[in-house]
C-alpha cells in the first residue's frame, strides 16, 4: 500500500536515473496544466515561482497579507550545503551521512542523499537572486559551523538567513505574479482538499476578509503549509502557524507520518510569566561561541559573575568532548532538562541554563561577537532587559520544529494521487531529529529542485483533461462540509475563549508528549485530550460573524484540528516504545541516559491512516544500504 518509489541503483545515481526515467511534460503543454500551491514560505514560494517559470498555470494561496510573511522568515542561523568551500573535508556524502545520523536513522537514505546533492545548487540559485550572504574580504561566501557537524558548511546572512532566503523566493514569486504566470491569493486560508475518484482535484478556501467560502480546481495540489509545533501552544512558531491544511488532507486520506517526532530546540529564551504567548528562539549558531553551564551546586542563588570557574559545570563540554557545545539539538535539550530537574536551573523562575559569551568576547573582542550575533543579542536584551554582552544569556528548550508530517513518496507525493507535500509539512528528510540549518535547505530543495521535476510524472498521464469543474458534486459536498463546520463553531456560543482551550491542550502535550515521554503519561494524555475536545465543542465562544474578518473564528478552526492531531501524536509516541532523536521514551535509554533505539522493532516510518475511531498504522520499512546503524555518539 505504501509505495515509496525509491529508484533502483547506487545511491549516488538514484536521482539522476529517476529524473531520466520519469515522464516529462513538454514546454508547450505545461500551460495546459493548473497547479495549486498552498503556503508561500520557502517551500511554497520557491515551488510556485519555479512552476510558473516552467510554464504551468499556478494559483498560490496564503493566509498572510503577503507571501513575504511566512514563518520561514524567522529562521536565523543559516542553510547547509556541501560546497566544501572551507576545504575542511566536506562532501555530499558527509552531509548525507551527518543528516542520516543526526536524524537517528529514521529517515530514507535516498531522500536524504538527494537533499545533499541539490544543496549546492540552492546556494548558487540564492546567491544569483541577490541573497546577501555573509562574505569574506575577498568577496567569497563565508561559512560557519552548526550542531551535529564537524565541518563548516553553513551559509548565512547575519542572524536573518531565513528572512533573506524567503525574500529571495518571494521576489522570484513576485516576478512570476507580474508576468501573469502565478495568480496570488492572499488572506485566503485553505480549509479542505477536494478528492474525486481517489485523486486530489482542488481545494476549498475561506477568504479571510469577506468570509466567502470558495472552490478552486486544479490538476494537482501542493501543500507547503509548514509544521504543527503550535499544538503545544507555546513554541517558537508564529502565532498563526497551524496544522489545518495538512490535517484536512489527512482526513481526506493522506497518511500522517511520524507525528510524534518533534524537535525541542535547546536555545530559547525561558518563559517569564503565565501570559506568555510564544517563545523566542536564540539561534543555534550562538553555540559556536557561547559556553553552556550551570552551577555545580543545586539551588545556587549567586549571580553568575560571582560563581567561580571551579563551581561551574560546563556539562556539554564535560560529557561530549568531541562535539562539546555543538551536540545536536535533541541531545542539548535533554541535557538542559536533566540539569533543571536536578534543581540547577538559573534565573528568577529557575527555568534556564547559562549560555556564556565571556570567553569568546575575551578572545575575539566585543566587536567580532557583535558582528556575528548582534541582532540576536539585541532581541535578547529587549525581551529580558538583560545585556548578554555583560551577563550570560539564560536559555531553555522549546518546541521548534516538527519532523513528522504528511507521508510522501520519493516524488514528494502523498498516498493521495495529485496531492503533494513540501518542506516542514512532509515527513521525509529529517528522521527523528533535524540538524540545524537543514530546514531551509530542505524547504528550498523541495520547492526549487525536486517538485518541479517530479510533478510532471503525475501530470503527464492526464494531458488533455481539463480540471474538474467546481460544480461537480465532489466540490459541492466538500464546500458544504466546510460551511457546516464553520456554522457549528459559530453556534456553540459557550463561555470560554479559544485561547483558553489552546493553552490547556498545550499543557497536556508539553507535560506528556514533550521532551520526555512515558507510557502512563501518554495514556493519561489520550484520555485528557478527548475530554478537553468535548469541552471545547460544548463551551467555546467564537464571537462576531462568519461573513467577514474574524480572527477568533480562524483560531477556533485551527485549535479544533490541533485536538485531533495531539491525540494522534500521543498515539504514535505510545506505540513507538523506543527512543529516537527528539522522541525520548523514558523506558528506553542507555545507562548514561542517552536515547536508545530498538532497530529490530522500530526501523520503520509509522504512517497513520485516518479513521473515525482509531487511526490505522501502516509501516514503511527503512532500508540502510550505505550507512551502518550505530548508537549515536557525540563523545
Amino acid at each position: 500500500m505504501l509505495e515509496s518509489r525509491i529508484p533502483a541503483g547506487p545511491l549516488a545515481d538514484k536521482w539522476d536515473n529517476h529524473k531520466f526515467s520519469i515522464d516529462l511534460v513538454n514546454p508547450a503543454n505545461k500551460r495546459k496544466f493548473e497547479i495549486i500551491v498552498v503556503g508561500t514560505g520557502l517551500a511554497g514560494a520557491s515551488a510556485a515561482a519555479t512552476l510558473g517559470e516552467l510554464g504551468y498555470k499556478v494559483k498560490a494561496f496564503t493566509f498572510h497579507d503577503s507571501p513575504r510573511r511566512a514563518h520561514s522568515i524567522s529562521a536565523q542561523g543559516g542553510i547547509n550545503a556541501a560546497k566544501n568551500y572551507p576545504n575542511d573535508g566536506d562532501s555530499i556524502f558527509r552531509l548525507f551521512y551527518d543528516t542520516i545520523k543526526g536524524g537517528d536513522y529514521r529517515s530514507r537514505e535516498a531522500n536524504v542523499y538527494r537533499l545533499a546533492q541539490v544543496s549546492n545548487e540552492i546556494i548558487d540559485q540564492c546567491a544569483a537572486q541577490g541573497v546577501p550572504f555573509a562574505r569574506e574580504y575577498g568577496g567569497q561566501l563565508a561559512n560557519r559551523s552548526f550542531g551535529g557537524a564537524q565541518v563548516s558548511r553553513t551559509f548565512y546572512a547575519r542572524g536573518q538567513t531565513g528572512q533573506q532566503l524567503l525574500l529571495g523566493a518571494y521576489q522570484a514569486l513576485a516576478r512570476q505574479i507580474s508576468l501573469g504566470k502565478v495568480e496570488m491569493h492572499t488572506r485566503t486560508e485553505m480549509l479542505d482538499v477536494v478528492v474525486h475518484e481517489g485523486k486530489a482535484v482542488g481545494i476549498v478556501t475561506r477568504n479571510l476578509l469577506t468570509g466567502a467560502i470558495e472552490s478552486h480546481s486544479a490538476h494537482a495540489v501542493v501543500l507547503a503549509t509548514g509544521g504543527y509545533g503550535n499544538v503545544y501552544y507555546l513554541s517558537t512558531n508564529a502565532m498563526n502557524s497551524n496544522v489545518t491544511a495538512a490535517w484536512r488532507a489527512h482526513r481526506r486520506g493522506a497518511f500522517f507520518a511520524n507525528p510524534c517526532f518533534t524537535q525541542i530546540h535547546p536555545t530559547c529564551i525561558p518563559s517569564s510569566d503565565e501570559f506568555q504567548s510564544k517563545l523566542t528562539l536564540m539561534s543555534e549558531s550562538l553555540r559556536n561561541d557561547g559556553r553552556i553551564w550551570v552551577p555545580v551546586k543545586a539551588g545556587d542563588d549567586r549571580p553568575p559573575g560571582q560563581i567561580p570557574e571551579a563551581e561551574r559545570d560546563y556539562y556539554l563540554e564535560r560529557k561530549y568532548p568531541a562535539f562539546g557545545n555543538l551536540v545536536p539539538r535533541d541531545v542539548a535539550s535533554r541535557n538542559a532538562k536533566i540539569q533543571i530537574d536536578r534543581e540547577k536551573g538559573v534565573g528568577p523562575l529557575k527555568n534556564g541554563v547559562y549560555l556564556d559569551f565571556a570567553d569568546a568576547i575575551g578572545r575575539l573582542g566585543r566587536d567580532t561577537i557583535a558582528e556575528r550575533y548582534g541582532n540576536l543579542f539585541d532581541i535578547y536584551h529587549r525581551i529580558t532587559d538583560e545585556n548578554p554582552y555583560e551577563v550570560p544569556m539564560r536559555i531553555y528548550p522549546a518546541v521548534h520544529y516538527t519532523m513528522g508530517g504528511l507521508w510522501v513518496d520519493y516524488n514528494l507525493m502523498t498516498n493521495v494521487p495529485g496531492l503533494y507535500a513540501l518542506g516542514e509539512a512532509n515527513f521525509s528528510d529529517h528522521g527523528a531529529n533535524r540538524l540545524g540549518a537543514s530546514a531551509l535547505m530542505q524547504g528550498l530543495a523541495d520547492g526549487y529542485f525536486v517538485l518541479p521535476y517530479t510533478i510532471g510524472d503525475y501530470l503527464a498521464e492526464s494531458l488533455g483533461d481539463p480540471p474538474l469543474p467546481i460544480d461537480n458534486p465532489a466540490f459541492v459536498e466538500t464546500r458544504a462540509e466546510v460551511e457546516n463546520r464553520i456554522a457549528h463553531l459559530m453556534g456553540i456560543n459557550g463561555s470560554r475563549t479559544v485561547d483558553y482551550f489552546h493553552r490547556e491542550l498545550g499543557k497536556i502535550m508539553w507535560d506528556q508528549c514533550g521532551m520526555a515521554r512515558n507510557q502512563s503519561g501518554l495514556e493519561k494524555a489520550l484520555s485528557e485530550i478527548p475530554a478537553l475536545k468535548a469541552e471545547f465543542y460544548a463551551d467555546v465562544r467564537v464571537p462576531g460573524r462568519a461573513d467577514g474578518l474574524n480572527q477568533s473564528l480562524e483560531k477556533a478552526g485551527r485549535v479544533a484540528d490541533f485536538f485531533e492531531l495531539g491525540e494522534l501524536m500521543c498515539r504514535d509516541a505510545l506505540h513507538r516504545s523506543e527512543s529516537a532523536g527528539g522522541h525520548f521514551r523514558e523506558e528506553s535509554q542507555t545507562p548514561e541516559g542517552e536515547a536508545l533505539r530498538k532497530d529490530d522493532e522500530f526501523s520503520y516510518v509509522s504512517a497513520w491512516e485516518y479513521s473515525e475511531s482509531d487511526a490505522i498504522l501502516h509501516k514503511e520499512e527503512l532500508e540502510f544500504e550505505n550507512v551502518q546503524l550505530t548508537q549515536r555518539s557525540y563523545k
Partner: protein
Amino acid sequence: MRVNLRVWRQAGPDAPGGFETYQAEEVSEEMSFLEMLDMVNEELVVSGGLPITFDHDCREGICGSCGLMINGQAHGPQLGTATCQLHMRTFSDGDTIVIEPWRSSGFPVIQDLAVNRSAFDQIIEAGGFISVATGSAPDANLTLVPKVAADAAMDAAACIGCGACVAACPNGAAQLFTGAKITHLNLLPQGQAERWKRTEQMVDVMDEFFGSCSNMGECTTACPKGIPLEVIAELNRDYVKAQFINRKLTAQD
C-alpha cells in the same frame, strides 16, 4: 500595573471608526505589548464583546505583520523595535495609551487596527527582484561580492516591510521601503543587469500609491530595523540616472 487604552475601532473599510476606551488591569512588566492586547481581547470575548482586530504573527520582530501607532508613534516609543517586541516595562502604572492603525491613504483600514499593505507587494512585483530562472545560476563563488558591498546590501535588505516608514511620514511616502529594496539589489553585482529598469518601474508604481518624499527623516526613526536614510539618496540617484543613461552602451537595462 494598570493602563488605560484608547483604541481605534472600525468595523470595516467603509464603516466610520472611532476611539473606544478600555482598562487593562494586572498588566505585568514582562508582557509584550501584544500580550497585553491579547489579555484585553480575552476579557472582551468573555464579557460578550468583539475582540480588537490587529495583524501579528511571528512576534519576534521579523515577519513585519504587526504595526500599531502607539501614542502617535509608529511601533511606539522604543527605537528600533517592532510593536511585537515592545514590552510593557516601557510604560508606567496609570498611563493612558492611544492605539491607532497605520494612517496613510496607501494603507486603507480593513478592520480596527489591521490595514491593507498590498501596495508594497505591487512595488516589489514591478521590479524588486533579479530575474534568474531556477537552475540557471553559476557556482556561487564565481561572482565575488566585496564584503563592504555585501554588508551594505544586507543593511538595506533587513527591511521587514511593516510599513512604519509610511505611517510615520507626514506625506505618507514610501521612499524608505522602496529605496531599501532598490539599494539591496542595485549594490550587488548580480543586480546590475536590470538596475535602471528596476529603479524606474518600482518608483513609478510607488508613486501611484504613496506621497512624495521631502526628506523629513521620520521614516528612519520609526523603522524597527534602522534602515538608513541613505537608501533614499540611492533611490533618487539611480532614478535620475535611469532617465539619462545609455543602457545599450553600459550593457545595463
